[in-house]
C-alpha cells in the first residue's frame, strides 16, 4: 500500500535553532503512530510541516498533496487537534457544530451530537465557560465526526486530569479508529499511549532516531538487568545504553538476539520510556 505520508530530507531552521535536520520517514495507512521526542526535538515542527502550517525544505507528500501549497484542500481529509484550548473562546458549542458543518463537507453533525451526548457539555455554553477537559472533549467530538483519513494530534491530553486522558484514548480507539484511518500523535506521556500505538517514531534534535513498529520492538530491543559481576561481560556485547537500577545495571541492547543475553541476567522487552531514554540519551555525545 502506498504511504500516507512520505517525508524525505525535511529541514527547518528558526534562526540559529535547527528544528528539523534531514528527517525522513513515512507513515502507512491504518496505523497509529506515536511521534515521541524531548522538548524542542522537532515534533511540533514536523507536524506543522505535515499540516501545511509552516514552510520547510525537503520533500513532503501527504495524501498525494504538497502541504505547502495545498493546505486547504488537504484539510478535507486531514484533521488535527493542535493543542488543548485552541477552540475560539467566544464560540458557543452549537455554533461550533453548525460552523464546522457548514465549512467541512465531511462533517456529520449527528455523529458529533452523539459524542457530545455522552459528555456533560451543554450545547448553549460558550467555549470560555467550559473546563479544559470539556474543551478537549468538544474538540474531539468535532474531529471524530469528520470522516478524515489522517488525524494528527499534538499533545492532545496535556493539562488534562487522568480521567479525561484515559477517556480520550478510549473514545479514539473505540469510536473512531479503523483500518481506513491513520492517527499520528505526539505526547510526553508515553506510558498512557504505549498500548494504543502500532508504530513508534523517536525524534531527537530534528532527526528521526527510531522508526519501528510496536511488534518489532521486542525483537529489536532487549533490556537486561545485570548483576555487578557481569557488567564487563555485558559491556562487551555493545549495549546502546546503560543505567543504574536498584543496585543492578540495566543494559539496553539493539539487534542482539535475546538468547545471547539471557545468561547475563533477567532479559525483557523494554518499556517505551526506557527505550526512549536509551535512544535519546544514549545518542548524546
Amino acid at each position, binding site marked *: 500500500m502506498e504511504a500516507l505520508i512520505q517525508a524525505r530530507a525535511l529541514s527547518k531552521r528558526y534562526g540559529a535553532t535547527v528544528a528539523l535536520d534531514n528527517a525522513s520517514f513515512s507513515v502507512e495507512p491504518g496505523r497509529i503512530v506515536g511521534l515521541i521526542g524531548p522538548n524542542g526535538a522537532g515534533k511540533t515542527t514536523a507536524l506543522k510541516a505535515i499540516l501545511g502550517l509552516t514552510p520547510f525544505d525537503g520533500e513532503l507528500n501527504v495524501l498525494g498533496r504538497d502541504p505547502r501549497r495545498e493546505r486547504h484542500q488537504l484539510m478535507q481529509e486531514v484533521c488535527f487537534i493542535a493543542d488543548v484550548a485552541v477552540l*475560539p473562546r467566544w464560540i458557543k458549542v452549537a455554533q461550533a457544530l453548525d460552523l464546522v458543518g457548514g465549512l467541512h463537507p465531511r462533517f456529520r453533525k449527528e455523529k458529533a451530537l452523539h459524542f457530545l451526548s455522552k459528555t456533560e457539555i451543554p450545547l448553549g455554553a460558550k467555549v470560555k465557560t467550559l473546563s479544559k477537559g470539556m474543551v478537549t472533549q468538544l474538540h474531539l467530538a468535532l474531529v471524530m465526526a469528520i470522516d478524515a483519513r489522517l488525524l494528527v494530534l499534538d499533545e492532545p491530553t496535556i493539562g488534562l486530569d487522568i480521567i479525561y486522558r484515559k477517556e480520550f484514548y478510549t473514545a479514539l480507539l473505540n469510536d473512531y479508529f479503523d483500518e481506513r484511518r491513520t492517527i499520528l500523535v505526539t505526547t510526553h506521556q508515553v506510558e498512557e499511549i504505549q498500548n494504543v500505538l502500532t508504530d513508534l517514531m523517536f525524534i531527537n534534535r530534528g532527526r528521526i532516531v527510531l522508526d519501528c513498529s510496536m511488534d518489532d520492538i521486542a525483537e529489536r530491543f532487549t533490556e537486561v538487568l545485570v548483576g555487578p559481576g557481569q557488567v564487563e561481560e555485558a559491556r562487551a556485547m555493545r549495549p546502546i545504553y546503560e543505567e543504574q537500577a536498584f543496585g543492578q545495571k540495566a543494559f539496553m541492547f539493539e539487534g542482539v538476539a535475546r538468547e545471547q543475553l539471557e545468561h547475563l541476567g533477567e532479559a525483557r522487552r523494554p518499556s517505551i520510556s526506557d527505550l526512549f531514554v536509551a535512544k535519546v540519551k544514549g545518542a548524546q555525545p
Partner: protein
Amino acid sequence: MNGFVWLIRRELWEHRAFVYVPLIVGAVMVLLTVLLSGQIINALELASDKVASMSQQEPGAAFGTVVGIFAVAVALFMSFVVLFYLLDCLHAERVDRSILFWKSLPVSDSSTVFSKLAMAMVVAPLIVLASAVVFGLIEMLVLTIDFSAAGLNPWESLWRSSSVFGTILFLLYGVVVQALWHFPLFAWLLLASAFAKRAVLLWATLPPVIVIWLEKLVFDTEWFARQLGDRMIGVFPLAFESVSERQIVINGEGAEIELGAPLAEMINPGPFLTSPGLWIGLIVGALLIAATIWLRRYRDESI
C-alpha cells in the same frame, strides 16, 4: 459560495458590535426624538407657516434628510467598529492560538482574508444602510405624530412624493463608492493585523505618520498627508454632484427639473469612475491584500 456565507456568519457571531452598535445608535436617536416630542411640537407650532412653505418648495426631502442623518450617525459609529475589527481580526486569532483551529478547516487563507475584508466593505455598509432606512422610517412615524399634533398635515409636509426608492438608491450608491474608495485603507489595516505581534494600532498608524514627518522634513511638502486625508473623506465631492452645482442646473434649465427624487439626482459616477485616485487605490489595496494573504498563509507563529 456557501462556505463564504458561513465565514461571514462566523464573523458576525464573534463581533456582535456590527449588529448591536447600529441598533443602539438608531434606537437612541429615535428615543431622543420621542423624548423631545414636546419641544418639537412647540417649535413646529411656532414655525408652522415656514414649515408649510418649505415643504411646498422641496417636498420629498424629508425622508431623505431623516434617513441621511441616521445613515451618517450610524456610519460614524460603525467606522470605529470596522476600524477596531480590522485591526483585531487577524491578530487576536494568533494571540489565542485559535488560528490553529481555523487552519484545521478546509478553508483557504485567501477566503479567510476576503471574508474579513467583506465585513468591512460589504456587510458593515449594508447594515448601516438597512438600519438607516428602518430607523429612518420609525423616525418618520414619530415625526408624523409630532406634525399632526402641531396641526400640520403630515402627508403634505412630510410624506408627499418622498422618494423612498430614490433615497435607498442614493445610499446604496454612497456605500458602494465609499467602500471602493476606502479599500486601500481597509487593506492596510488588515495587513497590520496580520503582521504585528503586538500593538497593532501602533503598527497601523506609525508608518504613515513617519512618512508624513519625513516628507515634511526632506521636501517640506504635505503631499502624502493630503493624499491620506483625501482617501478618508474625499470621495463625496468626486462621486456626487454637489448641491450648489445642482442649484446652477436648476437655475439654468428653469423649473423643469423634477423634484421627486432630489437625492438620486446627485449620483454622478462619471468623475468617480474616471479618477486615477480610484484605480490607484484599488491597485494599492490589491497589493496589500495579497501581502496579507501571504502572511496568513506562511507566517509560522511557533517561535
